[in-house]
């Protein structure tokens, strides 16, 4: 096999060019991913900050054991475990309703879950501060002692994170649920088992590994979460590892060395979880459809259907509708008051967006970073997917490992790594740092999206092109690229959206001239300018949701 491969590689038909492209891809990937990690490792042994005079020390690693950090670690784990359990339960419940029951509003529910999926976490957090902080809408309007809810708390963080992560669980679980061989469940009914027995004894045991996998993914998403704990945790003096790292870096006196050690420790937790998750997926995929596509006859909810309706409506209201309404309300009033009847309505907040040169600049910056950066990210991702799934030249496993590394590294940690390394490079303070950082952080998004499609393409399609006389490059350009186009399109917009709304990776490396939209919103919010922050959030959400609705219809379909 390897002999055939290498000989096919050194043929005269463009072989040297492909080799050159492979080497370039490998080096760029290594540069983007290894540099920040190496810088972090270096930084974790330094006393000072990047760019200052600093000496070697073990103190940062020793400080990881301090009571403060251990407490933060435990808090993070507690928050993340609770979040993961409830998100997976919620996601599984919704998946079951949509794909196994006669729930009446399947289409609307999937569309609504899709909306929540694309509703940026930091905007959701902001809306919930407006709703449920001590002076917020709920608490002010519902002036009842025992119904007061302080969002600035561990419960608050968990609540918002669950709302935010349920759609991830839903989209993770629906694949296995759809592709599970439905005759396995039908055989249960035919054997005389009632729906509850079939769920308990057939569906659940068969879904156990997808559920575990979802649990681990949700755990990782929660550990990496920066925006939500930053917005509701920092004011309530609840720190997670991500916000701790941010505080250590951004407030003086900075302790960037300890932050680097925290970041590496954090990556160890998330990296290990991702490793476990991938092992599970690889070894225990649920039995899939072999025969015809008969759908399981949906189960009759009967009198339970009102309960199902109510639960779903509650979720959709809490995760999207009410937060969006709160933002619209806040964006349209002069001064914040909880009662709409006492509010002075105005367009002023929207006007301020256009009058502030800083905001206009952050619009342009975001467009450049998201629009242009996504091209770079997608190109690199496509090349990597092509090399690792199809051509498999010598060293492709290393490339694959490198490219999937960012899966296990939280955004804020990558940001810190870039801060440690790029201070020394001439691009410091330019948008290019943000672009590099985003490309690195979201590289797995690109390689997974494209890779899934590459695997689907039968090799004979390409071989037929060779047999017809097209060399590797020509067959890639004329056969493969056109066939990959749907994946490329969705990959592009996935990256665009991800770059567009990223907070964590940008939080540490933006400068006044490279501020992006997400950071502007956050800054307005932190300065208690809730009106403009809300107005900007609405503009951002409308852009995101419109893009997703027009371009990526697929994920919203039942």
């Amino acid at each position, binding site marked *: 096999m390897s002999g055939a491969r290498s000989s096919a590689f050194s043929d005269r038909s463009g072989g040297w060019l492909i080799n050159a492209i492979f080497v370039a891809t490998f080096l760029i990937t290594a540069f983007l991913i290894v540099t920040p990690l190496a810088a972090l490792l270096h930084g974790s042994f330094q006393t000072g900050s990047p760019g200052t005079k600093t000496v070697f020390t073990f103190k940062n690693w020793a400080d990881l054991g301090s009571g403060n950090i251990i407490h933060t670690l435990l808090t993070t784990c507690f928050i993340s475990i609770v979040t993961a359990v409830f998100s997976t339960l919620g996601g599984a419940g919704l998946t079951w309703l949509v794909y196994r029951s006669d729930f009446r509003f399947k289409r609307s529910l999937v569309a609504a879950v899709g909306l929540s999926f694309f509703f940026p976490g930091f905007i959701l957090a902001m809306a919930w501060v407006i709703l449920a902080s001590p002076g917020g809408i709920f608490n002010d309007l519902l002036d009842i002692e025992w119904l007061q809810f302080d969002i600035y708390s561990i419960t608050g963080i968990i609540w918002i994170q669950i709302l935010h992560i349920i759609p991830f669980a839903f989209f993770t679980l629906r694949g296995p649920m759809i592709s599970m061989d439905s005759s396995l469940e039908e055989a249960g009914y035919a054997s005389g*088992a*009632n729906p509850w*027995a079939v769920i308990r004894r057939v569906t659940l045991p068969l879904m156990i590994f997808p559920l575990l996998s979802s649990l681990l993914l949700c755990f990782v998403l929660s550990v990496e979460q920066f925006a939500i704990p930053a917005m509701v945790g920092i004011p309530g003096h609840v720190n997670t590892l991500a916000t701790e790292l941010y505080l250590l870096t951004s407030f003086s006196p900075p302790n960037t060395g300890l932050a680097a050690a925290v970041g590496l420790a954090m990556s160890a937790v998330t990296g290990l979880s991702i490793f476990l998750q991938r092992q599970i997926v690889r070894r225990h995929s649920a039995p899939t459809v072999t025969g015809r596509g008969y759908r399981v006859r949906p189960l009759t909810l009967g009198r339970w259907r009102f309960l199902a309706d109510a639960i779903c409506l509650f979720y959709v209201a809490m995760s999207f509708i009410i937060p969006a309404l709160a933002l619209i309300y806040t964006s349209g009033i002069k001064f914040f008051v909880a009662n709409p009847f006492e509010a002075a309505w105005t367009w002023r907040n929207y006007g301020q967006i256009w009058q502030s040169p800083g905001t206009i600049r952050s619009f342009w910056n975001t467009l450049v970073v998201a629009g242009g950066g996504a091209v770079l990210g997608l190109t690199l991702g496509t090349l990597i997917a092509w090399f690792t799934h199809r051509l498999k030249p010598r060293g492709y496993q290393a490339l694959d490992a490198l490219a999937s590394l960012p899966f296990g590294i939280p955004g804020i940690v990558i940001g810190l790594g870039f801060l440690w390394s790029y201070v020394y490079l001439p691009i410091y303070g330019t948008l290019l740092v943000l672009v590099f950082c985003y490309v690195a952080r979201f590289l797995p998004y690109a390689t997974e999206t494209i890779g899934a499609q590459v695997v689907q393409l039968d090799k004979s399609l390409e071989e037929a092109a060779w047999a017809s006389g097209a060399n590797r490059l020509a067959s890639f350009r004329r056969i493969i690229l056109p066939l990959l186009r749907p994946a490329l399109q969705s990959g592009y917009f996935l990256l665009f959206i991800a770059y567009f709304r990223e907070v964590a990776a940008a939080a540490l490396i933006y400068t006044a001239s490279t501020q992006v939209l997400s950071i502007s919103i956050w800054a307005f919010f932190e300065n208690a300018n809730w009106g403009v922050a809300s107005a900007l959030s609405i503009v951002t959400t409308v852009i995101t949701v419109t893009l997703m609705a027009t371009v990526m219809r697929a994920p919203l379909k039942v």
Partner: protein
Amino acid sequence: MGIFVKGLVKRYGGKTVVDHIDFEIADGELVSLLGPSGCGKTTTLRCIAGLETPDGGRIEIDGEVVFDSASGRVVEPYHRNIGMVFQSYAIWPHMTVFENVAFPLRVRGAKAADITSRVSRALQRVGLGAFHDRSSQQLSGGQQQRVAVARAIVHEPAVLLFDEPLSNLDARLRDETRAEIRQLQHDLKVSTIYVTHDQTEALSLSDRILVMHDGLIRQLGTPEAIYARPNDVFVAEVVGTANFFNVIVTTDGHAVTPGGATFHSSCLSPAGPARAMIRPDRLIISATVPAPGPNTLQGIIRQRLFMGGHYEYVVETEAGSPRVLSSDEFAEQTPVVLSFDAGDCIFLPA
């Protein structure tokens, strides 16, 4: 009481896949639903199992109404006393062989001792006595199929439903398993519906065959009757290879080909254009010329295929080029005469 189906209708979207069909299956009888894919046979089976809800009609299993559109009665599949073998076998990968087979008993609340003995008996019956503790994922396709059968019979259901159970097995195993299913059904004397698109399976297994096409029943009868006297060209082709000749029926039992050959048939048929059908094994091929008369065709052997036990010839005649089976050897291009009995020739609507 077997199975009783009346006016069964099932639609998907605007398409009617089962179109008002009626049939009855006697106690202990095995009936095959035979037809090409998309003819509605599997949908009919799934309606009887309760895995699909029909749009109209009435179904009774063992005397109990399990579906009736008039009264709105729908019995859930798990409350119907059925055993079903799926095309994909649907062996649960998270259970051992024993647990798979024990499942129908467990959900019915059987006692532990009872379960052990009945599962053992069921497994013995399908020849898997030693497979109790085997993980279901270590089984071959043929073994999985047997586990599926054991699981379907272990609770002694009123009816057995087979959905193309042999289509995923290789040819040799299929022949063997077919015979075993027939034996098993004979021993259990349980009413059985067997869905298949394979004519050999239907012919060899069934007490009666129900041929379906486009959601309609085209013919229902014993294998011998359907093979020898199909209602129409479609049924004739579904149950086996058939030779057709264009003829004009003159008087009852007599017809002429455009070339002037005369066919006599013992079947009655209205006058006018028709298709005469003769099975390849019913045409007699000979080199010696018998007295010219009805039911003979002069021809030349155009192709010879050696099939092992016999030869298959394509013989060119002025009436057409039928296929003929014979154990006698003839060289290609030999002039021959084909003849047949009036009882082996039937006239079908053109």
